[in-house]
């Protein structure tokens, strides 16, 4: 039975992922900003078979509380073996260009707060010599583009941080998973016109579930994004800088 701590538990992808674990009877400590929504997610997971569900309202940028929350989760679940970090915002790129204050806030949410959680979780798991740390990064972190480079830079930093962490924790037997979804139809992307490249949160969740079980290092979800990003990252900068992607 897994003991899973989820940050951003009310996100569509996190909910769908948690359902797959709930069916196996796993135990959850759910963290998100809105306690009412957390309550709905908790009820749903309980009906679907979760062994137990505890919730905790937290704004992830409140980094001072990170240590306490992880301790509380470990205590409530009597141990901890899986951490999933699933929250994020999609910044308004134009607003980020106009005001660094705005960009900084987005970077705090999508990057710095994640690095804080990762530091704490890594130390705890390194000590216990087991566990899985899974983080939803993004294909946007693979290469900077003018349309969303503040988001991309945040996610890119998270991906590189995770690479280092994986390298460091390998010796302790701790599994570090970088999840790179492409376009997913969720509240975060509700203002976008959906097309053929879009995936449902259920489909992405299935990929995350499998990657956790199989202890994968990096997954692109759906998997065709690996090829798309291979092409995008191999375009020479000389040419890339002229493109509108």
């Amino acid at each position, binding site marked *: 039975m897994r003991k899973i701590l989820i940050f951003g538990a009310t996100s*569509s992808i996190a*909910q769908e992922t948690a359902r797959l674990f709930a069916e196996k009877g796993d135990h959850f400590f759910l963290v998100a900003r809105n306690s*009412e*929504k957390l309550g*709905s*997610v908790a*009820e*749903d997971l309980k*009906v*679907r078979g979760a062994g137990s569900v505890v919730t905790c309202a937290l704004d992830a940028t409140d980094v001072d509380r990170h240590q306490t929350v992880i301790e509380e989760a470990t205590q409530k679940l009597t141990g901890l073996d899986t951490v999933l970090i699933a929250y994020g915002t999609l910044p308004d790129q134009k607003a980020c260009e106009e005001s660094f204050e705005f960009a900084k806030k987005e970077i705090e949410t999508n990057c710095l707060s994640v690095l804080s959680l990762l530091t704490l979780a890594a130390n705890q798991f390194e000590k216990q010599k087991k566990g899985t740390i899974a983080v939803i990064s993004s294909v946007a972190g693979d290469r900077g583009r003018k349309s969303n480079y503040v988001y991309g830079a945040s996610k890119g930093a998270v991906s590189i941080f995770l690479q280092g962490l994986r390298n460091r924790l390998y010796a302790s037997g701790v599994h570090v998973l970088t999840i790179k979804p492409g376009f997913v139809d969720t*509240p975060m992307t*509700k*203002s976008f*016109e*959906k097309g053929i490249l879009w995936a449902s949160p259920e489909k992405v969740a299935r990929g995350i579930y499998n990657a956790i079980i199989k202890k994968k290092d990096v997954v692109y979800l759906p998997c065709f994004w690996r090829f798309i990003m291979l092409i995008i990252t191999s375009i020479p900068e000389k040419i890339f800088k002229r493109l509108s992607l």
Partner: protein
Amino acid sequence: MGGQQYQSWGRYPKVNQQAVSMFWRQESLPLDGFEEKTFLPYGNGRSYGDSCLNDGGVLIDTRPLNRFIHFDAENGILRCEAGVLLNEILHLILPKGWFIPVSPGTQFVTLGGAIANDIHGKNHHTAGTFGCHVNCLELLQSDGTRRLCSLEENPDWFSATIGGLGLTGLITWVEIKLKKVNNPFIDQETIRFSNLKEFFQISADSDSDFEYTVAWVDCLARGDALGRGVFFRGNHAQSGTSKQPSPPRLRFTFPVDPPFSLVNQLSLKAFNFAFYNKQRKKSQKAIVHYAPFFYPLDSIEHWNRMYGPKGFFQYQFVVPHAGGPEATAEILGRIADSGLGSFLAVLKIFGDKKSPGLLSFPRPGITLALDFPNQGKKTFDLMDRLDDVVRSAKGTIYPAKDARMSKENFQVFYPQWQEICPYIDPRFSSSFWRQVS
């Protein structure tokens, strides 16, 4: 916020609409930015015609409302959000010994859609409509009002919402009563019948002993063979069946849109002939898995694509017992003569259990449902001719399957239609409703 991917199952009519999603039942309706527009809740798009469309308006996609709230596995009471699909419910409840009280022909409908259309199934003669098994629901309106509705609380709103075609507001969550079963299997008997008279005989003989009854009719047969077909009757299997049928493994899919309808005279004749003659013996018994028994077409994903880009119509009527057999024969005759009918038609006798729904379709009598590929004017003309028979037999047509009913006919078929008007949300409307009201 494009609404292009939102269609009805019959893929007719094509409309121009926008769409927004409803993600949390606690939030108010996502009306911002559409000041002048009307709204309509949209489930999983299994209504055939225009009752799930809102041309020029906005659809509220309710599929993200797919959370369970509470399951009392002792007493078989399930509370969940309205965007949950029936197959998701079955996945949860069947291992605990429960089943859906009323199953339509597909398990890919949302709970909200099942209530808004007050759907029925093969057990209508014993269980009534889906609405008969709803304990309570929450209705959210555009002004932010939330009402708990049941037979005791806000019973007028309850009655208007069951079969209310999504017009009275958005159903956020629902509580239903489930049905106890021992296993996922059905004790099925299939009986071949050679004409309509024989169908009525078998149906009358089956009603008291079989919970589920339905017949497939060859709608190309004429003359003495008019109304020939195969009768299916069944009960949930008792415990301890020796043979355990497995669920259908393979799911086929129609991956692309064929440029024209694959349903034509030749393919139809071959299919209906094969179906009728598949069974050698007059009657045959088997224990089958619930999925092929209730949802035979669910194993072919996107089967609606086989009718090509013009789409198709489904036509379902009910006529009262008095004069009903004659009207049914007349209609089957007109369909056979036209040569426009599609695969097997579905024939069933409705029972007399009354639904709480104000605009519910089912009523005691004979009901027939079948598909027509959209062949333009001749298809419309045929359905108009069928309407005439239904109307003179004092029958009615099912809005969930309709895309072309005239205003005049609707108001004759549903003389109580104006009673729902005070309950319609002022910001809600649908293509269907604008056509008939």
